[in-house]
């Protein structure tokens, strides 16, 4: 499926900056849409996702209450498994909360109750009382190119057991046999032939 053709997949990923951190900012009017597919689970920089209602980076105290957050990824144990991306966590925290005294952020499953919410790892889906996300319409792949077929000039059907005469004209094996029996010349160019003047052809398949 070619993603760029799909109208309904709106990626909120902020690509281009080296960090690759993703910020989901739902607009008030529209149902927020997070393209789960667009989020790369394996990207090491994607450790933090901040769900906030606006760009103003206001303390996210309301966020967690206003918008229920479902964590799909149970890999919540950031503190147990510190990664090189700890730096990224620090930055985010300071931006969001303005709270500098705690550089090391401990994340626990109960973090939803705190002033801000850090969602370790990637998959976040906001559930709202809206209809489910529209499923991108599957664009059917273009049909594979047709294999060329050639017809026999004698029976006018598709070639069966194609054979070439010594002069290079191609017929079904049974057709050229019968034809040479009837008259000893090529049906196409009238070159003189005898019963051994043709051989089987093994045509290759086409390559796309």
């Amino acid at each position, binding site marked *: 499926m070619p993603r760029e053709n799909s109208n309904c997949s709106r990626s909120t990923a902020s690509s281009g900056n080296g960090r690759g951190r993703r910020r989901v900012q739902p607009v008030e009017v529209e149902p927020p849409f997070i393209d789960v597919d667009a989020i790369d689970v394996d990207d090491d920089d994607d450790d933090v996702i901040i769900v906030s209602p606006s760009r103003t980076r206001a303390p996210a105290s309301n966020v967690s209450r206003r918008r229920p957050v479902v964590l799909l990824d149970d890999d919540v144990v950031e503190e147990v498994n510190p990664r090189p991306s700890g730096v990224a966590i620090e930055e985010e925290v300071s931006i969001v909360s303005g709270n500098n005294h705690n550089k090391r952020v401990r994340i626990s499953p109960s973090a939803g109750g705190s002033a801000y919410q850090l969602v370790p790892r990637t998959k976040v889906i906001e559930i709202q009382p809206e209809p489910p996300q529209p499923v991108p319409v599957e664009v059917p792949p273009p049909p594979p190119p047709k294999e060329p077929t050639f017809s026999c*000039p*004698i*029976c*006018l*059907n598709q070639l069966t057991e194609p054979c070439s005469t010594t002069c290079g004209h191609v017929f079904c094996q049974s057709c050229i046999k*019968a034809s040479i029996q*009837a008259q000893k010349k090529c*049906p*196409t160019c009238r070159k003189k032939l005898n019963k051994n003047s043709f051989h089987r052809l093994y045509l290759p398949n086409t390559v796309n």
Partner: protein
Amino acid sequence: MTSSSVPSRKVLSKIASNRLQKEVMEWQTNPPAGFKYKVNDSLQRWIIEVTGAPGTLYTGETYQLQVDFPEHYPMEAPQVIFIPPAPLHPHIYSNGHICLDILYDSWSPAMTVSSVCISILSMLSSSPAKERPADNDRYVRNCRNGRSPKETRWWFHDDKV
């Protein structure tokens, strides 16, 4: 109509009737210009209407060709004659027989009714004068009892018309 010779009425082989069905289909989608084939129930005998090509001696005139297919068509040539009155042409006898090599010695199984028709129209179109062959009377007298032109030993002397 002594000329509407009795073709060998052997039934068409399976190969022949398959091939003729293909030709009918091809004709219906892509008929040769100047020809009309009134499809009848007989696959073995086609009656085809020819109209003289514009700008030739036969402009607007219509003639009828009768094509009979042998059991082993296309290994064997079809019998092609004009149903009299045949066009006045130096290679067309008054009994409708056509002196044209591809109908006899030079037949090839790669030829079709359609290609034969085009050759006949080309032969008509290149005619310099509306006249019968010099030996018309003698020839017609000799084939009086409905002999097929395929039994004639033709001499193809003129490669211009």
